[in-house]
């Protein structure tokens, strides 16, 4: 294991991405008034940060993958800390964990490397995971979260030159769970990085999924699907820092909401720095509201500091069940419940095709079936 002095690159600062710091106290306790916390139900997690001082380390289990690629990193041990500079207090707490899990990917892995985190209670816990894809390697890492937990989880990702890495994070917690954390990737020259967030369970999930580049021509795709049920708050905040030329970034998140106080937050932010000539970026978020009483916050942002780019765009939309659509399906003998199934499955189908992973599609579809089964026949 090599130890290197960590010199994180300059962090860009705006109201959407405050300066990062490893020092927990540098991040003031969120009150809910801050721009980055204004959508989060801080009231639901009043004692959360106090309790975190007495937290346990959350174990991460290697379910499938080579043992030799699975080790530990102390703070300051490269590459730990070279990519992820905590942008908020929870991320700083998880980053201060004494030991971090370290996955090293070398060569081509045909089968997904599977990691799991399973909570068995509400005692606070944290984990810091480092995924290091060596140059020209290729792999898919699937991280599944289940059980009951009050948890902060960081994922720090290095994608080496010309490497190809897909990271899938599935939030399938039991109700009552809280999950915060920062996923931060550094994409090197000619590398391809895909991050796929699937958020279904828990009372409160708030992930900060960020990307920056270590060389030109990096390609990042951030996909997400979520299904918020009554009383659930699912929040995804994305920050893509185009700090090198000729990079590509595509963001596409889709979510459905159902029930009283089901709430989703999607904040997409793309910064195009003066150095980032010839880049291309597009971010999109679509929401399907299935019942009354849901709340959707969709906020796309673009900060453009050079005009010499191939393209930059964004879109965000929120739609409801379309009565005419349901009438059309029902007029063919299809029941109300099944018609709703078809519409919701159809809504997610385009993004599932892009994700292209059968187990992600199966997890989401079974959840949709479970959620919609509560609908009454009409």
């Amino acid at each position, binding site marked *: 294991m090599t130890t290197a002095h960590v010199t994180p690159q300059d962090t860009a600062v705006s109201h959407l991405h405050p300066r990062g710091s490893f020092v927990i106290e540098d991040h003031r306790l969120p009150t809910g008034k801050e721009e980055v916390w204004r959508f989060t139900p801080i009231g639901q997690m009043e004692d959360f940060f106090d309790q975190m001082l007495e937290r346990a380390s959350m174990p991460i289990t290697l379910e499938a993958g080579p043992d030799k690629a699975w080790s530990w990193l102390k703070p300051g041990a490269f590459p730990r800390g070279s990519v992820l500079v905590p942008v908020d207090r929870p991320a700083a707490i998880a980053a201060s964990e004494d030991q971090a899990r370290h996955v090293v990917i070398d060569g081509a892995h045909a089968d997904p490397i599977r990691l799991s985190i399973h909570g068995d209670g509400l005692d606070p816990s944290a984990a810091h995971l480092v995924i290091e894809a060596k140059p020209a390697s290729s792999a898919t890492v699937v991280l599944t979260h289940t059980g009951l937990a009050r948890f902060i989880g960081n994922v720090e990702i290095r994608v080496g030159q010309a490497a190809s890495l897909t990271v899938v994070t599935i939030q399938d917690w039991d109700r009552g769970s809280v999950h915060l954390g920062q996923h931060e990737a550094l994409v090197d020259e000619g590398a391809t990085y895909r991050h796929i967030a699937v958020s279904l369970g828990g009372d409160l999930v708030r992930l900060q999924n960020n990307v920056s580049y270590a060389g030109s021509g990096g390609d990042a795709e951030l996909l997400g699907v979520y299904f918020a049920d009554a009383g659930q708050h699912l929040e995804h905040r994305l920050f893509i820092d185009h700090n090198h030329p000729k990079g590509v970034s595509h963001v596409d998140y889709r979510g459905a909401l159902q029930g009283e106080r089901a709430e989703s937050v999607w904040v997409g932010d793309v910064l195009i720095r003066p150095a980032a000539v010839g880049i291309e970026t597009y971010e999109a978020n679509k929401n399907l509201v299935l019942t009354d009483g849901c709340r959707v916050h969709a906020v796309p942002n673009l900060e453009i500091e050079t005009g010499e780019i191939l393209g930059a765009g964004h879109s965000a939309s929120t739609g409801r069940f*379309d*009565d*005419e*659509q349901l*009438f*059309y*399906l*029902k*007029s*063919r*003998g*299809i*029941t*109300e419940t*099944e*018609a709703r199934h*078809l*519409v919701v*499955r*159809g*809504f*997610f*189908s*385009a993004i599932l095709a892009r994700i292209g992973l059968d187990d992600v599609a199966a997890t989401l579809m079974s959840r949709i079936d479970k959620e919609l089964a509560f609908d009454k026949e*009409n």
Partner: protein
Amino acid sequence: MESRGLEIEDLHVSVETETGPKPILKGVDLVVRPGEVHAIMGPNGSGKSTLAYSLAGHPKYTITSGSVRLDGQELVGLSVDARARAGLFLAMQYPVEVQGVSVANFLRTAKTAIDGQAPPLRGWVKKVNASLAQMQLDDEFASRSVNEGFSGGEKKRNEIVQLDLLNPKYAVLDETDSGLDIDALRVVSEGVNRYTAPGDRGLLLITHYTRILRYIKPDFVHVFVDGHVVAEGDSTLAESLEETGYEKWVKAVE
């Protein structure tokens, strides 16, 4: 034994407006027996489409009185899907897009719902492809999302593919001829004629123009003005409408 047919009796229908309920259908009486082709013709705003959507159970329309029986079964009060399962089909003037749901999936789901069991897989795909081919749609059409990005003609042909595969006891075609060029009109008409050919199905063809009646011969023609039938006859009535238009009936109700 109950009498067979689609029997519409003294049907009154209102829609909700800002100023309260507005009556659109004002006592419609019409019977379609198995094997019969009925055409309903009338000017814009006469309530033809309201009749079609009311029969199918669209929530926008409230049936205030009257009855609709399908082979003796009362449809009023049934849900939209229960009416379809009872044997009623509505080919829509403006078929609706369903993003991400393929034509193949939609057809199989509908067939399963109507029959109460899934169609046998192998034979079914063949049947779907044959039906598409008859409507001059290729196999690839089945993998497209329902009505998404379809041309006007493709939407109407897709309606007739459903008519063919679901083979309902009674079908209502709401201005299926609108927006079709002459070739598409012929293809669609041939599809409808294949549906009625066995002689045990009932068809209610709603149209504004006589053009489609050159291809689909009605046994009965009903002139529809101001929410009810004002004149009835055989196919010669349609021919005379071509010359006189609806004016004399419209004037009579004013």
